[in-house]
Structure formats: structure tokens, C-alpha cells
């Protein structure tokens, strides 16, 4: 204390006051800062920019509207208007009088209105009083009644006066209008001319921001709580909930705060966030199945819809590395932290379809997801992994129960060791010689396992005797047949590479090197002739091949050899390795010594078989293949039904340098499932065993998308796509159609039909029939019968409808599917007797000749080659209503069909018959076709 102050004071009071003043100012500044910080939000800038974009858009519209306006006409009208206005001014006196009159009447009206209102109230009151009095038999009831009546009379009189004044007012107004009639007319015409432009100008005016004082006032700091135009816009989605772990809350999406025009057309050319949604008819749009107000944004896109702090808060995810670099530069983008479901990459967005669209084989318009579904089917992921929605699928690969009849053991071992060495298109994945087990010590053990598995499978294989004998054939003809009859819908085939590539079949194996694979030609002939003889539950159908045909095909397939593979010799069983592996198995719950004793008890063969049995279990062969004794074993893989919600921390990234996110892991896992073991010291029994499918990028991408969509979100019932009665039947039928790969050949209402890709360029009509409205086309009973007894309908086709081994349940489901798809009743009544109007039949016959129907529908009429179906079946097969529809415009049902349209644009080609009346012609011809069919049938 160097300085002395007043007694009792430690400080100088003046100095203290200064400090206080300084601190007070500082606090004030800080408070201002608080408001400013609260006020300046990134999204406000975006909204202001949105308005300027809107103005620019409106300006171009205004310019366009201005161009449309006939300026000469406008000038003329305006001139007229000013002239008329001058004329009008001469009538000033009259107008004044008229206006005065209106004012007077309005005054009277107002006064009368009041009188009327008072009377109305009085009447009501008096009525209540009287009725109460009357009800209680009070003495004054009569008195009250009189008063009430009097009031009522007065009320009616007042009402009458009111009407009179109203009439007068109307007349006066009309009078005034008449005076200025011409002016008004010109004004109206001008409005007609420039009205839409003026509206646009007004709209542009409304989009003003910083140069509009009212806008500034409404959005000024602090007072902007009243009625701001800059504000967070949000959608509350009740159909999809956000899981807040202790409670499910409706989604709140505020994306539209910045994505201002997402649901408005006209902004397609803008960059995000001002862009229009690219698929307004499917998503977001008011009339789309997924309107914005009901579905929100993050229901599909993922991300944090309620966060608008900045770009990163919403957990935006870049579509690729290029966009990522762009975003890092522009928004300081970083991978979101601690967000359970960041936004999907744009190309993965379809993943979200899955959580609501359950119970269907394919999702309409879900291109990538459907591709993913087909790839999952192709590789049989569901064989090992439980995947919601795939529980019903068949075992993916051939049965091994009678394998000895088909191939020899050496082939089996080499094949299991390296399927791709034999067939690079093989869907059998590679288990061995992979990133985590190609060390020599592991290879030796793996070889022992393969040897043991072969012995085990052979030991339990049942005997099988082929039904038909191979008697040599013409390989060239066989090859031709393979390309023609429709094998390529399921199989890729060596020698038909171009066709195979185009079709991309996946249901059956790629046929190559068959000569090196198939042990017994008789087996192949039998398999081709009657697949169910060898394997009762195979989906391989019979093509009703003749013995010759089957032999020809066999000859061709057996001519395909893989010499290099044939020369491979598999290492013989290394007994030491075998015993070593067995020991580790036996040691699992036991000591080394007792495991050794256990092993010693086993004979040599027993040891091999035991290792084989355990190895089959270890690698999960039974997941895809039917193996005796393991029919009920469950797959080895993890349940993938909620893979898309698995926390990232639960994925093991090992030492692989990739992005640490869910998508990257799944994708890389599919590409190389063993890579997580690289750099990890593991014992032989602990190695990862998910095999390598050698997927292409595209395949892996599509499967990844599907898996990302397998989320644990609880979607409320009203948010899920609930199939209606028709859709349920279609979904059920589609399961069968997909199982037997009907969609490999047939296009169903414009979808699928892989094999058609091959015919498309040449003649689509040479391919399998496209099924459009099939449920309307065919009779249900005929269809059901046909599926079990396939008969020829289109003799000119080389491709054949195969005979599938369908159960009656499956047939029913397929038939019902088509009926439901076309929303048809099961049966359409067939009129027993065809009744003709007078002269109608003659006309029909004339039409038949005129349109020369028999030139294509030849069967039963001449001996020409038919190029259209046999009409003898028409009555049993087709529905009458469909025949009419078909005749009217075949191209509308089947674009590119050879059936001509005789009534193009509603005009008959032959306008002599029935005077060219289209309906009568179609009617007559339909009847005639049905009659022919009936007669031909009777003849039979």
C-alpha cells in the first residue's frame, strides 16, 4: 500500500467508478455479441441466396411473358383507355350523383341492419320466454305469445325493407358501372394481356430481401421472433420415427431450410442446395407415392435431419472421393462423428427402400437394390447368413447327395481347392490359397482338409444309376440347340460367349469344361432329359428334349475340355497334418494327452472321415449344398438382417487402411473377406473362413447397398409399405417365379426377361413371349393346366417353354400372381353359344378374309408355316375381353408385335364392312375367332 487513501478506504473511489464503467460497457458489448452470434446462422445466408435465385428465375419468366405480349395491341388498348377515361370525365356530374345515391342507400342499409339485428335477438328471447311459460302453464303465457307475434311481424317487415334496400343498391351500382362500362372493358382486356406478367412481377417483388424495408424489419435481430421470413422450415414425419433409444420420436427434418426448392419444378438446373429433386414423380412431389410432407427427407437419405447448425451437422456424405475433396474445400467437410446413421451416399440411397418395402422379391423402381437382390441370389449370401426376407430361398448350389455319379474325386478336390481355376465364372467361392491362408504351413493343412472332405462326401454319397444311355451325337447341332432352346437364360455357355455375356445369366452354372468334369455321359443325358430323376428338388427344368437332341447337347458339352485343369494332381493326404488338425478339434474341451489317446483309438479311415465331417462343418458347405445328415444345420455367417445399423466400432478393420465407416467395411469385405486377417497373428483354427467370391466392383456395390438398408429401425405400421390384397398375391407368386427363374426368360409387365437382351437387337418376337397383362390375357384354368403340361403355342419359336417340376401350390401361386397383377377375377365366363346378329357373321367372314388372318394364324386353315398362335386354342386359352382389347391395338400391349393393327387411330382398314364401324368389326371378329376355336375343338 504505497498510496494513502481516505480513512476506511482501500481504493480510490473515482478509479473504482471508472473500472465499473469499463466493465459495464464490456458487458453490454458482450450481450450484443450474444444476440449477433445467435442471429447469424449459416442457413440464413442460404435462404437469402435462394430468394435471389428465385428472383432471377422469375425475371426470365417475366422476360418471356413480355415477349409474348403484343405491344402494338397493348398500346392501342391503352390509347383507347385514356380516350375513354376522358369521355368519362365529361360524365362527372352523373357519376357523382350515382355515387351519392349509393352512399345514401348504404346508410339506410346499415340502419336497417341494426334494426333487424335487434329484432332478431328480441324474437329469440321472447320465443324462449313464451315457450317456457307455456310449458309451465304460467299465467302470462298468452301475454308473452302476443308480444312474440308482434315482434315477429316487425322482424319480417324489417327483413323486407332490407331486401328492398339491397335491391336498390344493386341497381345503383349497376347504373354506376354502366356509366364507366367502356373503361372497365378496356381495363379487363389489358389485364388479360398482361395479367400473368403482372402476377410474376408481383411475385418477384415479394421475393425481395435486403432491398425491402419490410423484409428487413421482419428479419431484424431481436424483433425477428414476431414474424420472420427467414426461418427454419421443418417437416414432422410421424410415419417414420427416430430412435432416441428410450423413446421413439417422430422424425423432424429441417433439410428444406436450405434445400428451398426441393419440391418445386423449375430449379433442375441449379446446384445444390437449390436444386429440384431429380425424381419428383417418385419422391418428394405432392402427387408422388412418397410426398415430402409425409416422408420427410432423412427417412430415405439418412443423416441428421434436425440439425441445421452448418453443413457438417447434418452428416452429409459425399458420393465419391472427388466430391469429398470438393466439400473439404468448400465446407471444411469431415466424416461425421458419433452419428449412428450418417447420410447415405447418393448412390446408396436406395438402401432405404428396404426398411419399408418388406416381403417382396423386388422393389418397384429400385434399380440398384433389385440388382443387389439378384446378386445376393446369385452368390447365395443367404445360404450362410440369415438375411431378413431371404428365408424362403432354396439352397443355392447342387446337391452333393449323389455326387459320385456325376464327377470323380480328383476333380472334386481340385475344384474345391480352386473353383476359379476350372471356371472363372464359377459362383462357388474360393476358400483356399487366400490372403490369410496361403502360407505353406496353412496350405498343407488346407490340403489335408480338402482330401478329408472329399473322402467324407464320397463315403456318404448314395448310388445313382442313370436312366438314359449316351449314344453319341452331333456336337455342332448340340451347340446350336443350347443357344436356341433357352438354356442361356440360366446358364452362361462356353462357345456362346457373346450371347452369355449379353444375358448375364446367374441361376445355373456357367457351362465350361464339362468334358473334364462329367464322369459319366449317361448321367448328363439323363440330367438333360429328366433332371428330377437325379435331383428331385432341382429347379433345372426339362426342355422335353428328344433323345437325339439330348445326345447332341451332351456331345457338345463333353467336347468342352479344360485340359490344364484335368492335368492337375491333388496332393495326397498328409496324415501328419490330418492328425494335427484333428488333435486341435479334439483338444477343444480336452487336454492334449486325452485328445491324443482319443485319436489313437481311431483307425486311419475313421480319422480321415472325422476330419472330413468336421471340415464340412467348419466351412459350412451344407449352407449351399444339400448334404446327407446336415439338412437342418444352420448357416455359419452372422445375421445380416440388421447389418445396416451395426455400430462402426463393432466392425473389425484389422490393419487395413480404408475409411472407417460401415459402407467401406462391407464393400471391402465383399471384395476380399480375408483381408482383415492380414498382419494378425492367428492360429490355423481361428482364421476367417468367409470365402472369396471374386465379385466385381458393381456386384459388391449393389450388395453393399442392400446390406446398408438392412437396418434395425422400427418403422411404424403406417410408415411401412403394406401390400394390398393384390400385391400380396403378386409378392407370393413372385417368390415362385424368382425361384424357378421365370424372369430369366419372360419379361413381366416390362420388367426382367434377361434373355430378351439377346433377341432385342434382332427380333424381339423370336424370344420368349413378353407377359404383359398375362392375367387378363389367359384363362386361369388353362394356365394352371399349361404349367403342368406345356404344349406348343408358338410353333415358330426355337426357344422353348421348359417343363418345370412345379407343385400344384406353386402353379396356383404363379397363376394367382398374374391374375392379381392384372387385377382380374380368377375366371371369365365363356359364352357357350355364340349368338350372331343379322348379317354379322357374313361381315365377320368378310373381315377374316379381308384382313387375311389365316396368313399368319395358319394352323387349321392352310399348310403354310404359322407365324402366329394356333387359333384353335383361343377359346380355352384367351379371355374374350382381352381378345377385343388385343384386336383394338396390339402394339399398345406388346410394342413391336407382328400382329398388325387393323383399326389404327380408330379407323378401320377395310371400311366397306359394317360401314367401317370399328366396334362392330372388332366384335364380329372376336365372335368369329371364338366360334372357330369352338368348332375346331369339337372336331377333335
Amino acid at each position, binding site marked *: *500500500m504505497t498510496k494513502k487513501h481516505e480513512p*476506511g*478506504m*482501500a*481504493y480510490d*473511489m473515482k478509479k*473504482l467508478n471508472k*473500472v*465499473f464503467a469499463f*466493465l*459495464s460497457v*464490456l*458487458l453490454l458489448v*458482450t*450481450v450484443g*455479441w*450474444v444476440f449477433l*452470434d445467435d442471429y447469424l446462422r449459416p442457413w440464413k445466408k442460404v435462404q437469402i441466396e435462394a430468394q435471389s435465385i428465385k428472383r432471377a428465375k422469375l425475371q426470365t419468366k417475366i422476360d418471356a411473358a413480355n415477349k409474348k405480349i403484343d405491344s402494338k395491341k397493348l398500346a392501342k388498348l391503352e390509347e383507347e383507355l385514356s380516350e375513354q377515361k376522358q369521355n368519362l370525365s365529361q360524365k362527372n356530374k352523373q357519376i357523382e350523383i350515382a355515387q351519392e345515391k349509393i352512399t345514401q342507400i348504404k346508410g339506410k342499409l346499415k340502419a336497417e341492419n341494426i334494426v333487424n339485428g335487434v329484432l332478431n335477438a328480441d324474437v329469440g328471447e321472447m320465443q324462449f320466454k313464451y315457450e317456457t311459460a307455456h310449458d309451465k302453464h304460467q299465467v302470462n303465457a298468452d301475454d308473452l305469445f302476443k308480444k312474440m307475434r308482434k315482434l315477429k311481424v316487425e322482424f319480417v317487415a324489417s327483413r323486407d325493407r332490407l331486401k328492398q334496400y339491397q335491391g336498390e343498391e344493386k341497381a345503383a351500382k349497376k347504373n354506376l358501372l354502366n356509366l364507366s362500362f367502356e373503361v372497365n372493358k378496356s381495363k379487363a382486356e389489358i389485364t388479360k394481356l398482361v395479367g400473368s406478367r403482372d402476377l410474376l412481377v408481383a411475385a418477384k417483388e415479394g421475393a425481395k430481401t435486403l432491398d425491402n424495408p419490410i423484409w428487413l424489419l421482419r428479419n431484424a435481430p431481436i424483433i425477428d421472433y414476431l414474424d420472420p421470413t427467414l426461418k427454419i422450415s421443418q417437416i414432422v414425419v410421424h410415419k417414420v420415427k427416430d430412435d*432416441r*433409444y*428410450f423413446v421413439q420420436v417422430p422424425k423432424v427434418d429441417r433439410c428444406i431450410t436450405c434445400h428451398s426448392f426441393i419440391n418445386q419444378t423449375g430449379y433442375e438446373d441449379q446446384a445444390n442446395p437449390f436444386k429440384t429433386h431429380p425424381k419428383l414423380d417418385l419422391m418428394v412431389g405432392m402427387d408422388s407415392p412418397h410426398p415430402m410432407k409425409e416422408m420427410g427427407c432423412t427417412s430415405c437419405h439418412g443423416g441428421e435431419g434436425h440439425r441445421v447448425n452448418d453443413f457438417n451437422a447434418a452428416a452429409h456424405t459425399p458420393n465419391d472421393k472427388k466430391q469429398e475433396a470438393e466439400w473439404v474445400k468448400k465446407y471444411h467437410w469431415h466424416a461425421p462423428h*458419433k*452419428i*449412428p446413421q450418417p447420410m447415405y451416399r447418393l448412390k446408396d440411397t436406395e438402401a432405404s427402400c428396404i426398411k419399408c418395402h418388406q416381403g417382396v422379391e423386388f422393389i418397384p423402381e429400385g434399380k440398384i437394390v433389385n440388382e443387389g437382390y439378384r446378386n445376393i441370389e446369385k452368390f447365395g449370401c443367404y445360404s450362410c447368413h440369415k438375411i431378413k426376407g431371404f428365408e424362403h430361398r432354396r439352397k443355392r448350389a447342387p446337391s452333393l447327395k449323389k455326387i459320385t455319379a456325376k464327377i470323380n474325386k480328383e476333380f472334386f478336390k481340385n475344384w474345391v481347392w480352386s473353383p476359379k481355376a476350372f471356371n472363372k465364372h464359377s459362383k462357388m467361392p474360393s476358400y483356399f490359397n487366400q490372403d490369410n491362408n496361403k502360407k505353406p504351413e496353412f496350405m498343407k493343412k488346407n490340403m489335408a482338409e480338402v482330401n478329408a472332405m472329399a473322402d467324407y462326401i464320397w463315403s456318404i454319397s448314395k448310388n445313382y444309376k442313370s436312366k438314359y444311355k449316351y449314344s453319341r451325337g452331333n456336337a455342332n447341332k448340340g451347340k446350336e440347340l443350347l443357344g436356341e432352346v433357352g438354356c442361356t437364360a440360366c446358364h452362361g455357355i462356353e462357345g456362346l460367349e457373346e450371347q452369355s455375356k449379353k444375358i448375364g445369366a446367374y441361376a445355373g452354372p456357367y457351362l465350361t469344361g464339362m468334358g473334364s468334369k462329367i464322369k459319366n455321359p449317361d448321367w448328363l443325358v439323363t440330367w438333360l432329359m429328366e433332371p428330377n430323376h437325379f435331383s428331385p428338388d432341382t429347379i433345372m427344368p426339362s426342355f422335353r428334349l428328344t433323345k437325339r437332341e439330348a445326345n447332341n447337347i451332351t456331345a457338345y458339352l463333353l467336347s468342352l475340355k479344360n485340359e490344364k485343369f484335368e492335368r492337375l494332381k491333388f496332393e495326397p493326404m498328409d496324415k501328419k497334418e490330418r492328425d494335427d488338425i484333428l488333435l486341435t478339434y479334439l483338444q477343444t474341451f480336452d487336454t492334449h494327452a486325452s485328445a491324443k489317446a482319443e485319436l489313437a483309438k481311431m483307425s486311419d479311415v475313421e480319422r480321415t472321415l472325422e476330419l472330413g465331417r468336421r471340415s464340412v462343418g467348419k466351412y459350412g458347405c451344407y449352407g449351399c449344398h444339400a448334404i446327407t445328415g446336415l439338412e437342418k444345420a444352420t448357416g455359419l455367417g452372422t445375421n445380416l438382417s440388421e447389418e445396416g445399423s451395426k*455400430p462402426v*466400432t463393432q466392425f473389425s478393420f484389422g490393419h487395413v487402411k480404408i475409411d472407417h465407416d460401415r459402407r467401406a467395411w462391407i464393400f471391402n469385405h465383399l471384395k476380399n473377406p480375408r483381408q482383415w486377417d492380414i498382419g494378425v497373428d492367428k492360429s490355423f483354427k481361428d482364421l476367417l473362413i468367409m470365402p472369396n467370391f471374386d465379385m466385381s466392383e458393381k456386384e459388391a456395390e449393389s450388395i453393399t447397398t442392400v446390406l446398408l438398408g438392412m437396418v434395425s429401425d422400427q418403422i411404424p405400421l403406417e410408415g411401412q409399405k403394406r401390400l394390398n390384397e393384390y400385391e400380396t398375391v403378386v409378392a407370393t407368386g413372385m417368390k415362385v417365379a424368382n425361384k424357378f427363374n421365370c424372369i430369366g426368360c419372360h419379361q413381366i409387365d416390362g420388367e426382367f426377361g434377361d434373355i430378351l437382351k439377346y433377341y432385342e437387337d434382332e427380333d424381339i418376337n423370336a424370344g420368349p413371349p413378353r407377359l404383359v397383362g398375362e392375367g387378363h390375357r389367359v384363362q386361369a384354368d388353362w394356365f394352371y393346366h399349361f404349367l403342368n403340361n406345356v404344349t406348343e403355342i408358338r410353333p415358330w419359336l426355337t426357344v422353348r417353354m421348359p417343363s418345370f417340376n412345379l407343385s400344384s401350390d406353386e402353379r396356383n401361386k404363379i397363376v394367382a400372381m398374374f391374375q392379381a397383377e392384372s387385377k382380374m377375377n380368377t375366371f371369365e365366363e365363356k359364352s357357350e353359344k355364340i349368338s350372331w346378329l343379322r348379317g354379322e357373321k357374313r361381315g365377320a367372314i368378310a373381315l377374316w378374309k379381308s384382313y387375311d388372318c389365316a396368313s399368319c394364324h395358319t394352323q387349321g386353315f392352310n399348310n403354310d408355316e404359322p407365324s402366329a398362335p394356333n387359333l384353335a386354342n383361343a377359346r380355352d386359352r384367351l379371355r374374350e375381353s382381352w381378345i377385343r382389347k388385343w384386336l383394338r391395338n396390339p402394339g399398345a400391349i406388346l410394342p413391336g408385335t407382328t400382329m398388325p393393327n387393323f383399326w389404327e387411330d380408330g379407323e378401320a382398314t377395310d371400311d366397306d364392312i359394317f360401314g367401317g364401324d370399328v366396334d362392330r368389326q372388332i366384335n364380329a371378329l372376336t365372335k368369329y375367332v371364338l366360334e372357330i376355336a369352338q368348332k375346331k375343338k369339337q372336331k377333335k
Partner: protein
Amino acid sequence: MIKEFINYISDPIRSFPIVTILFILQMKYYRTFGTKKFYFWLMIIGIPLVFLAATDPNFLLILTWPDNVPISLLILSLGFFTWLSFHKAAVNDARIEAGEPPVEGTPEMREKVWCWPNLVYTELFMSIAATVFLIGWAIIFKAPLEEPANPTWAPNPAKAPWYFLGLQEMLVYFDPWMAGVVLPGIIVVGLLAIPYIDTNPKGNGYYTIKERPMAMGLFLFGFLVLWIFLIIIGVFMRGPNWTFYGPFEYWDFHKVEAAFNINLSEFFWVKGLNMPMPKNILLREIVGIVLTIGYLILPGTLFLRMKQGKEMLSKIGNIRYYLLVFLVLTMGTLPIKMVLRWLFSLKYIIAMPEFEFNL
């Protein structure tokens, strides 16, 4: 290389003894520590070092994590105020040695002033300044909010508020019941009891170390080493799974630390006597029980045999003496347990999980 060395010595196994030694040195040479020159050079050397360390991405990440920023500031201010009190004590002790009264006891310091405005007004200043500071801080550093709580996906590491991290660190060495309930209870009660135990008028109203070496030493050891140091460890060096990470170490989620701990009874019966564990729980844990009772009784009674002990007892009386001994011994359990854990991987001295009683 240096970074790795710092990481290496930061592990509590090494840093705890180092800090303890530093503390003893500080107490012993407090007059050097308390000079302005010392503080000046400490700052001159220390500040550039901190900036240099902050060039390390991992260290910077820990330092700038929004939760940790205030803690760093607190630590800095704590350092300053510790030095300040040592400085004042050093000055006073020099004066007392020279026969002068302490600074606080000079006549001008004893002069009385009005409460208003000298106190109330300046307090108002401080509250305004603090408000301004907090507002500024709140604007610049956004609240480190995390995603909605998810019971199936707990944050890792799950950390207590910073002021409890010393307690959380104790969980590494003690049964949760001890570290979470008993010891914190004793700490609170012990702190409350200090005015009643310590009746020595020396040091009242002025800073001194020389006149109160034991009181100052014991308290500051408990505060600086057993509390603040453990908080620093807990804040900056405990990462996922509560594993130790050096200040320059990347918080690798998968870091594994070998920790297999053995109870004293297992040491005694299985490893020492090579025989099965007795079925009787009390017999089983007999060594631990005897040691614990011995620990609680012997030091207090042995101290009484010494001259200082007798002096103290006569000064403060029986109850105060035994309370003090109990509190000091309780405080001592933490370093003892730490050292035993590091040296012998000792889990519990008495392990009776049957009764939720583990020491």
C-alpha cells in the same frame, strides 16, 4: 524419441514417484521455488515447451478437446496460485527468521476498511468480469454435446466430470465400493474435520511453511499429488477402455495393456504356501486382515513412542490424535495400493467379494 520418452515416463508407474519426489523437493527447497526468479525461468522455459508439445497432433487433439480447454486453464491458474502461496510463505518465513512479523501482520496490513465499497463494489466488478468471460467462452467454444444417449453404444472412454477424475482414477486400484463411496466420504468428512483437529494457531492469517511443515506437507501431498495429479492423468492420459495413453500417443481403440491382478490371499496360500485356498473366508483372508489391522494400529502407537509423538499427543489430546492418525493412514492407502499394484499386480489385500468387501 523425446516424445516417446515422455510417453514412457508419463505412465503413473513412473510419473507418480517422479511427481512425489518433485513434491518433496518443492517442500524442501520452497524458498528457491518461491522466488520470482524461479517462476520467471519456469515460465521462460515452460511456455515454449508447451507450444512445442502442441505441435504434436495427438497432444493438440487432447488439449483442444472442448471439454479439456477449461481444465488446462484451471491447471495453469492452480500452478500460479501454488507458486504465489509458496512465494508469500517464503517471504514471511524470511521475515520471521529475521525477527519481523509476517507481511500480513504489519500495521498497515492490519488497518480496517469499509465493507462498502471496498469489498462489495469490487465483488460486483468480479462478477461482471466473470459473466463477460463466461459469455465469451460460451460463444467461442460450443457446448461439446454428443449424440443422444444410447444404452447399447456407450461412449468410450466414459469419463466422469473432470473434478471427479481423481476418484475415477482411484477405481483402478480400489474396489468401486471403496473408491466410490468410502474413500470420498472419508475425504469429505476429513476435510470438514480439519478445523477441529488442527488447533495450532500458527499460520492463522498469514502464509508460512516453516512454522507448519507437517500440516502443510500432509495437506499439499494429498491435494497436489493425490488429487490434482490424478485428475491430470485422468483428463489427458486415460483413453478408450481407461487405458493409459502418453500425451503424444494416438488413442488407438485397440490398444491392449496386460493386466492380470492377484489377491494377497492367493499370493499367500497358492503361491507362497503352495496349498489350496481355505474354505473359511476369514481364514482365507487372514493375512490381509492382520496386515490391515496392524496398519491401522501400529503406526499410531509406534509414533507415540517417539518424542514428537508424545509431544503431539500432549498438545492435541487423544481423540484428535487418533482421528488424525486414521485420516493420514487412510490417505496413505492410495499410494500404498498403487505401488503394490505396480510392483506385484496386487488386486486386493482383503478380498471378500462374498460380502462386497474388498480392500
